[in-house]
Structures are given as structure tokens and as C-alpha cells.
């Protein structure tokens, strides 16, 4: 007998869990019900019960899922919850693991709208308002390429500012896929980047038709856009979440196009205005310069140019004077020095010495003359005396006494010996009063007396 198989509680629970998890119908179900026992745990997870008149089911929505809820679940709220059925093993309890939840019914739409608006406002998504470019080069338009909105926008842009290049990002603007399509379009044009401003919107319609622009995914994609966004949804009275998040809300698509660009006519007027400002600014400037020039031309410097040089002339004169003075002083000093030298030189002059020498010379000359005269006188006296004596001894005197002198035939030599002549020679005989030319007739040596006399006479002469 085989024993019946016994399961532990855990095994049983795991078996049931495997059963439920394996059922595809339970993996993704939509459940309509009313919320009760709602608890928002501090972990962020939501625990509640969904019930209807006859039954109830436990439900959990984890924080990661409920973060994007467009509304805040409350007890008594009727909702549509989407999720999978599984078992919480600890309690052996099956429950609905909610991934998505929507308020049930149009009334709930408004509630969801209000709640989302409040939440996004609290998050600060409505506070960012960026300035729009004044002259957008490229304008992105995220909308349906077939709607009235694109037609209005293009007409307006063409009329006002044909300079801008319009880039349309075709998206679905209504229906279930619209929110994701719009968000993807905004994301795509942001990746494309080369756009200065973005118009996101659609033409008028029912609240359900406009609802995509109330979806959080659209709001967040607008907020995430690095390109400034102008929202343009429906008519003036239609205000969507997208309008709050956008940098600028336009009441209509036409208005959005008007807000996106300036008007060419205004620009042309502005250009004219700026040209006028340019002209008048330059005119004014030229006028100012002219006045300045005149003022300068009339300045004393130009009217009395001499004044410009006068101080210099004065200075020059001053220097001139000083130079003269200095030079004068210098000359004076030199002159003084010169004179001193002259004086000194005068003291040392040879003239003085010359005078002294001359005086001395004169004295000596005088002395010499005197001595000379004296000497002459003495010599004269001596001469006189000697002459007297000489006279007394003169041969002439002797000759007067009868003596004669005999000269050779030339008259040059006194003959003192008979040997000096030969017979026939011519001799001269000098007497006291003249001469005799004689010829020797004969020679005779040794005639005593004649010879002695002549010798004696000669001796006498020699004695002189």
C-alpha cells in the first residue's frame, strides 16, 4: 500500500504559486474595483484591497510602479488596475500585483488630471519657463501632419517669418498610443537637436481627444526637452498638463506660431528704425567732433602760437644770459691769471737783467775807457819818453853824423859784410838826406875802423 503523498505547507503554497504564475491569463489582467483598506507604506509600496459587491482581492502596487500614478488612490475610489496574480508565500495569500492603475470613468479623469497637476506642480515642473529665441532658425512642430493645427501653424509662420525652417515631427495626437507617440516625437526632435524652438500641440477636440496632453509621459517629455517648448492644444478654453509644463502656453496653434516668431513687417520696421538710429548717432558724433575741432582751433595755442614758444624763448634768453655771465667770469678769471703771470713774468724779464747787465756793462765800459785812457796816457808818456830816447838813438841821427847804410841792389837787404857783394854789383847807399846808386869797384876785407863802426851801429840797433 503506497502511502499518500504528504506536502508541507510551503510545498503546497509553492505548488499553487507555480500554478498561478504559469497561467498566462493571470499574468496580465485588468481588474475593475473599489479601493479599500488603502495603505501607502513608508517604503513607498501601496497595499489595498479591491472589492466589488460580491468579492474582494488583496492588491499591492510597489513603489517603482506607483511612482508614475496620475492620481492618488484613496479608499472608495473606483479604479481599473492592471497587473499579474501571484501568491505571497508567507501568508499563503494570492494577490494582484498592480503595475498600472487608472481612475475609473470620466469623473475620475478630472480627478486624475487634478492630482497629476498638483503632483507635477509640487515637483516644480511648472516653474521652468525658458526664454524663447527672438529669431528661431529652425522651428520644430510636434503634431499630426494631417490636422488643422499644422495647417494653421504653417500658414502663420509663412506669413510672419518665412526665414525659419520648419521641421515637422509627425505624431499621433489622439488615441491610446498618442501619449507615447507625442513623448517619442519630443524626444526625437531633441536628439535631432538642430531646432531652436518647439511647438507641441493639436487642434481642438473633445476632452478625451485632447487627453494625451494630460498624460504624465507627455508632461515629462516636455520637461525633459532641452529645446524650449510652446504648447498649443485645442482652443483657448482647453488647458492641459502639457500647457503647464511648457515654457510658454499658446491658446491655439495659430497663436503658437505667432509667439514663436517675430513678424517680418515688424522686423523691417525695426531695421528702418535701427538704420535711422545709426544715421543719427553718426550725425551726432560728427557734429560733436566738429564742435571739438572748432574749439581746438580756437584754443589760445592756435590763436597765439607765439605763446607756445614764449616760455622757451624766455628760457633761452635766460640761458643765454647765464652763458654770457659764465663766460665773462671765465674770461675774467683767465685775464686775472694772465695778468698775474704777466706781472710775474715782468719780474723775471731779461730786460731787467739786461738793464742790470747794461748798467754793469756801462760801468765796466766806463772803467775800461778810463783805464784805457789812463793806460794810453801812460803809454803816450812812455812812448814820448821812448821816442825821445829813440830819436836819440835813430840811425838818421847817426847818419847825420856821417854814417851810411848800404843795401843790396834790390834795396831789400842791408849789407853787413863785404862778402855779401862782388865787384860790379850795384848797391844803394843811404845817407841821412837821400840815396846813392853805386857800383862796387873793388873789395877789401879787414878795413878796421869802417867795420867796427858799422858793427857798433848794428849792435846799437840790436840793443834797442
Amino acid at each position, binding site marked *: 500500500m503506497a502511502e499518500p503523498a504528504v506536502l508541507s505547507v510551503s510545498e503546497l503554497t509553492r505548488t499553487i504559486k507555480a500554478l498561478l504564475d504559469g497561467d498566462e491569463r493571470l499574468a496580465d489582467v485588468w481588474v475593475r474595483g473599489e479601493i479599500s483598506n488603502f495603505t501607502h507604506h513608508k517604503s513607498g509600496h501601496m497595499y489595498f484591497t479591491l472589492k466589488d459587491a460580491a468579492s474582494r482581492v488583496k492588491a499591492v502596487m510597489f513603489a517603482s510602479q506607483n511612482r508614475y500614478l496620475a492620481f492618488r488612490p484613496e479608499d472608495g475610489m473606483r479604479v481599473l488596475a492592471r497587473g499579474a496574480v501571484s501568491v505571497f508565500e508567507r501568508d499563503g495569500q494570492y494577490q494582484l500585483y498592480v503595475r498600472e492603475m487608472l481612475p475609473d470613468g470620466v469623473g475620475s479623469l478630472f480627478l486624475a488630471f487634478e492630482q497629476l497637476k498638483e503632483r507635477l506642480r509640487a515637483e516644480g515642473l511648472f516653474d521652468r519657463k525658458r526664454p524663447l*529665441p*527672438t*529669431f*528661431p*532658425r529652425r522651428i*520644430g512642430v510636434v503634431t499630426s*501632419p*494631417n490636422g488643422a493645427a*499644422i*495647417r494653421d501653424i*504653417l500658414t502663420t*509662420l*509663412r506669413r510672419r517669418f*518665412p*526665414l*525659419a*525652417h*520648419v*521641421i*515637422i*515631427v*509627425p505624431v499621433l495626437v489622439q488615441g491610446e498610443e498618442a501619449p507615447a507617440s507625442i513623448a517619442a516625437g519630443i524626444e*526625437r*526632435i531633441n*536628439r*535631432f537637436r538642430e531646432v531652436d524652438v518647439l511647438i507641441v500641440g493639436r487642434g481642438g477636440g473633445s476632452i478625451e481627444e485632447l487627453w494625451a496632453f494630460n498624460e504624465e509621459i507627455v508632461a515629462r517629455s516636455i520637461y525633459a526637452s532641452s529645446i524650449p517648448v510652446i504648447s498649443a492644444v485645442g482652443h483657448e478654453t482647453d488647458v492641459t498638463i502639457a500647457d503647464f509644463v511648457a515654457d510658454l502656453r499658446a491658446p491655439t496653434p495659430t497663436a503658437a506660431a505667432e509667439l514663436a516668431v517675430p513678424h*517680418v513687417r515688424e*522686423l*523691417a520696421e*525695426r*531695421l528702418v528704425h*535701427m*538704420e535711422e*538710429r*545709426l*544715421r543719427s*548717432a*553718426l550725425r*551726432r*558724433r*560728427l557734429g*560733436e*567732433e566738429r564742435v571739438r575741432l572748432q574749439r581746438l582751433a580756437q584754443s589760445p595755442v592756435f590763436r597765439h602760437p607765439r605763446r607756445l614758444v614764449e616760455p622757451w624763448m624766455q628760457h633761452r634768453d635766460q640761458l643765454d644770459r647765464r652763458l654770457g655771465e659764465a663766460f665773462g667770469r671765465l674770461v675774467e678769471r683767465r685775464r686775472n691769471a694772465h695778468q698775474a703771470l704777466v706781472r710775474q713774468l715782468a719780474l723775471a724779464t731779461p730786460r731787467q737783467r739786461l738793464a742790470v747787465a747794461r748798467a754793469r756793462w756801462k760801468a765796466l765800459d766806463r772803467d775800461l775807457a778810463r783805464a784805457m785812457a789812463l793806460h794810453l796816457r801812460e803809454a803816450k808818456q812812455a812812448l814820448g819818453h821812448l821816442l825821445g830816447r829813440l830819436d836819440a838813438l835813430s840811425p838818421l841821427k847817426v847818419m847825420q853824423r856821417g854814417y851810411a847804410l848800404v843795401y843790396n841792389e834790390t834795396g831789400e837787404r842791408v849789407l853787413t859784410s863785404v862778402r855779401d857783394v862782388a865787384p860790379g854789383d850795384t848797391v844803394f847807399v843811404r845817407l841821412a838826406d837821400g840815396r846813392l846808386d853805386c857800383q862796387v869797384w873793388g873789395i877789401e876785407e879787414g878795413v878796421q875802423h869802417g867795420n867796427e863802426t858799422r858793427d857798433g851801429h848794428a849792435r846799437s840797433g840790436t840793443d834797442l
Partner: protein
Amino acid sequence: METKRAMGMPEAELTFEAAMQRLEEIVQRLEDGDVSLEEAIELFQEGMRLSRWCDKKLRDVEQRIDLLLEEEDGAFRLVPFSGEEDEA
């Protein structure tokens, strides 16, 4: 491009916005008057050139309208948008 070269504009693509900004700046500087006379005259001439250029741009331009399409590989493609049938 030719216009810009002829006008002696910088190499970088001159946008209408940049031209208008420069024009505003020139007018402002000229009005402030703290530039030399030569500079003032140059600014004036540049300003007039820019003004004419902007004016011409406003008059001559034909609006360009494209659809932005994304290929499977993530490449972007701009396709001229006619939209005639929709307007009709």
C-alpha cells in the same frame, strides 16, 4: 554665402539672429559714443551693411518645410513636406 563673402562677413555662418544682434550692438555702441571717430564710421558702415543684408533676407526667402523621419538605425532624414492634399 556669396553675399556674406562679398560683405566681408566672418567665416562662420551668419544667422539672421546674429546679424540682428550685431546690428543692435552696433547701434548701441554708436549711441554710447565711446568709440573713436574712425571706429564710429566703420561701425556705421557695418551697421548699414547688416541692415541691408537682413532686409534682403526678409524679402527674398522661401520658407522651407520638412518632415523629420527617423530610420530604423536611428539616422534622421528630412523629407520636404508638401501637405497640399491636406490643405485642399
